[in-house]
């Protein structure tokens, strides 16, 4: 149905031109779900945009042929191309919240789209719209259709988006990261819907995503992209199960398995990757400095009955400001020197709990103790309190956790002089250099600014900053969620390594169960601010006790077929 041959796309910017897509060929058959997978910058979204004729002004197709059935997509006039959109190919985007016009009812948006391509009466169009909503699983479609987008929840909104893409009966739908912004449970529903639609309506899908688990779950065939080129292509089962290309192999080696815990990710060297030069001797200097300060390893953390209430949003103008209970009497214990994995969906309260411990959020009730010493809550914790040094945090977003106006050396030496750990300026710089080596970054990094580093490198700098306070408790709040799979594996390896060497007590927060399994000794599951289950990690994964945990485990998209070899 859709055939792409030797497609190349070039982007111009002030530095010159870069090939975003180079010599890519693929084909999609009717009713096939074709996965387009790759890490950031692989060019997958660009291919989608090129097919739709929606490349930004700086991009142009320099070579290749794209045919949909008998139509040559490249030679279409702008008017003809626009008529094709929606009629034969549709596209849906990542964020359902911003994809819908907030000022128009769902009904209006659906009818408008239908009537743009077909000559139907208003009533016929309306009937089809309602039918569509029912098909995608919205109850009471006839009444709900008159609602505005903001009246639907995130998952429902993405279904409405799919309905909008479907309403003109296209042959192909390009879905660009359609479930990335959704919770695991909702994601599962949307993926099911996509599979059902492919089957019942014989519509083809191009599923663009960086999430290999999603690919494994729904796609028939897959194309693996890297740097704008195709690395490997074929039936999903084969590609993911027995990858032939070294890149795909490296990629699969980096994917955290859900079914077992690895000691380390075994990451083969891939051609084209440069190893970060680090000085082993310097690294040892940092290691010694850390060990001499930490002593017997991290403290025990005990948290009792923590409750957090927020002012919350007004729901409409009649209701009073509703109180939102972020955490409801949560009690938890972390053994000294161990890693506690904290899991939950968005809104479960896991980040809030971390912030309470870190004195960024005030609990309404509850107590905390660090090694039997009471830990004061936010408002009463003094600025010079010892816990400020002992508790350190690695944040999720590598792009905002470092001050972009400070050089790396400023970032790293700040905790040293703030906590009085090193009074001499030159020795501080030495230590900073040594710590950089410990996390695997070259010494020249000191004089650079954060924006000169990649996401993974920035997280390493964040880890170095945390370690330079000589902490006892390390809180990692989704530290790798914003990173590519292969980079994630490297950073996770680093964290594992450091944790074992220095015996830091760690809280590892993530929504991704597979990642948590790799990192933690114990696990705690949160839902809507309440603790659902807690216990040793491996026991949990072998058989979770709570129904919610079982559902969560079942809904996590994972590679469920056998992989031969390592």
């Amino acid at each position: 149905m859709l055939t792409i041959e030797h497609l190349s796309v070039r982007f111009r910017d002030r530095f010159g031109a870069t090939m975003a897509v180079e010599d890519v060929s693929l084909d999609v058959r009717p009713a096939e779900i074709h996965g387009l997978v790759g890490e950031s910058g692989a060019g997958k979204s660009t291919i989608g945009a090129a097919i739709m004729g929606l490349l930004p002004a700086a991009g142009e197709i320099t070579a290749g042929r794209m045919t949909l059935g008998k139509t040559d997509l490249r030679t279409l006039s702008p008017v003809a191309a626009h008529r094709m959109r929606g009629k034969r190919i549709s596209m849906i985007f990542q964020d359902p919240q911003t994809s819908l016009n907030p000022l128009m009812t769902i009904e209006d948006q659906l009818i408008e789209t239908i009537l743009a391509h077909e000559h139907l009466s208003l009533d016929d169009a309306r009937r089809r719209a309602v039918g569509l909503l029912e098909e995608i699983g919205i109850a009471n479609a006839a009444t709900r259709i008159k609602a505005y987008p903001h009246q639907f929840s995130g998952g429902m909104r993405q279904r409405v988006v799919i309905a909008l893409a479907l309403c003109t009966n296209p042959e192909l739908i390009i879905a660009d990261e359609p479930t990335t912004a959704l919770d695991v449970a909702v994601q599962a529903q949307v993926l099911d819907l996509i599979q059902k639609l492919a089957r019942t309506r014989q519509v083809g899908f191009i599923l663009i995503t960086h999430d290999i688990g999603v690919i494994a779950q729904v796609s028939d065939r897959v194309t693996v992209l890297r740097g704008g080129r195709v690395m490997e292509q074929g039936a999903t089962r084969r590609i993911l199960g027995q990858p032939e290309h070294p890149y795909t192999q490296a990629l699969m080696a980096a994917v955290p398995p859900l079914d077992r815990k690895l000691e380390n990710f075994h990451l083969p060297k891939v051609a084209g990757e440069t190893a970060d030069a680090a000085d082993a001797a310097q690294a040892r200097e940092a290691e010694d400095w850390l060990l001499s300060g930490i002593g017997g390893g991290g403290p025990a953390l005990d948290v009792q009955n923590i409750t957090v209430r927020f002012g919350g949003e007004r729901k409409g103008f009649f209701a009073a400001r509703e109180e939102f209970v972020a955490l409801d009497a949560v009690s938890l214990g972390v053994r000294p020197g161990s890693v506690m994995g904290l899991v939950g969906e968005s809104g479960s309260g896991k980040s809030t709990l971390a912030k309470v411990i870190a004195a960024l959020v005030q609990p309404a009730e509850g107590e905390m103790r660090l090694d039997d010493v009471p830990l004061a809550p936010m408002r009463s914790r003094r600025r010079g309190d010892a816990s400020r040094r002992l508790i350190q945090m690695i944040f999720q977003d590598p792009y905002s956790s470092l001050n972009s106006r400070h050089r790396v050396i400023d970032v790293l030496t700040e905790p040293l002089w703030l906590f009085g750990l090193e009074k001499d300026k030159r020795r501080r710089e030495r230590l900073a250099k040594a710590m950089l080596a410990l996390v695997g970054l070259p010494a020249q990094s000191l004089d650079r600014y954060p924006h000169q580093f990649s996401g993974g490198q920035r997280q390493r700098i964040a880890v170095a900053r945390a370690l330079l306070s000589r902490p006892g408790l390390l809180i990692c709040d989704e530290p790798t969620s914003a990173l590519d799979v292969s980079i994630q594996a490297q950073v996770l390896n680093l964290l594992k390594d450091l944790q074992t060497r220095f015996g830091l007590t760690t809280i590892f927060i993530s929504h991704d169960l597979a990642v948590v399994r790799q990192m933690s000794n114990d696990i705690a599951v949160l839902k809507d601010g309440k603790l659902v289950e807690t216990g040793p990690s491996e026991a949990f994964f072998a058989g979770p006790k709570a129904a919610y945990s079982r559902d969560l485990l079942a809904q996590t998209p994972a590679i469920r077929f056998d992989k031969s070899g390592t």
Partner: protein
Amino acid sequence: MLTRLVQSEGIWLFTRSPAAMLAAVVTIVIVTGALFAPWIAPTDPYDLSSFSLIDGLLPPAWEEGADPRFLLGTDDQGRDLLSSILYGARLSLGIAAVAMAVALVLGVSLGLAAGYLGGRFDAVVMRIADVQLALPAILTALLIDGISRGILPAALHDDLRLAVITLAIALSLWVNFARTARASVFVERNKDYVSAAIMMGQHPVRIMLRHILPNIVGPLLVIATVDLASAILLEATLSFLGVGLPADSPSLGTLIRIGMQYLLSGEWWILWIPTVFLVVLVVAINLLGDFLRDLFNPSLR
């Protein structure tokens, strides 16, 4: 830190924007001319003894009946127009720059604090800003002038004219800075590096000045240029309305006001030359402001 940012993208874009370069050149020329007026200008228009009525109403050098001593002609009192313009620009620019600086310091401090500390302080500052926004800039400036006129005895008021006008303009402009600073702080406050600093127990003032402030310089710079242009226009308007500087130490606005009297009688140079000068200066500054705005907002390009 600012130089780093400017060096990387700014200079590159700048050299590719002929408008921006032209604007910068014009601004530099005018500012230098104004700054060095006492040394460059042929006469001192504020020195009552340096001119006489006999030389009054002479046209610029390229018209007939002109006196080559006065390149751009003279006004009704016999003052050399070129010197008046240079000195006038000096005054206008001086007042505008000082007013803008005061507005900047006041506005940014209040905005920073309001955005960071939130709570009651923020509410109070914002209420004051809201009330002030209900009274547009000219109104505020005029009011302040009126109040000072009422409070101070006449002689003192005249002496302090300069200070009063500067204060009036500054007080009408601070709100812009405050609101921009506050909005930027809201954005930065949610970023993790701020959380990291708070966690570490750093002092709020240190966090505001050392961490947040360097990150909000961009939008503030844009506002500064725009407000500089506004300040110049405001001062010119006040002088034109007759509540600005007195006629014997004229700024550009006063010159235009004097010139308007000769609109019908044919001594066009008294009106139009200062006008063109003023407009060119403000256009140049606004061009630079637009350039800066595009620089700090890459999404708009």
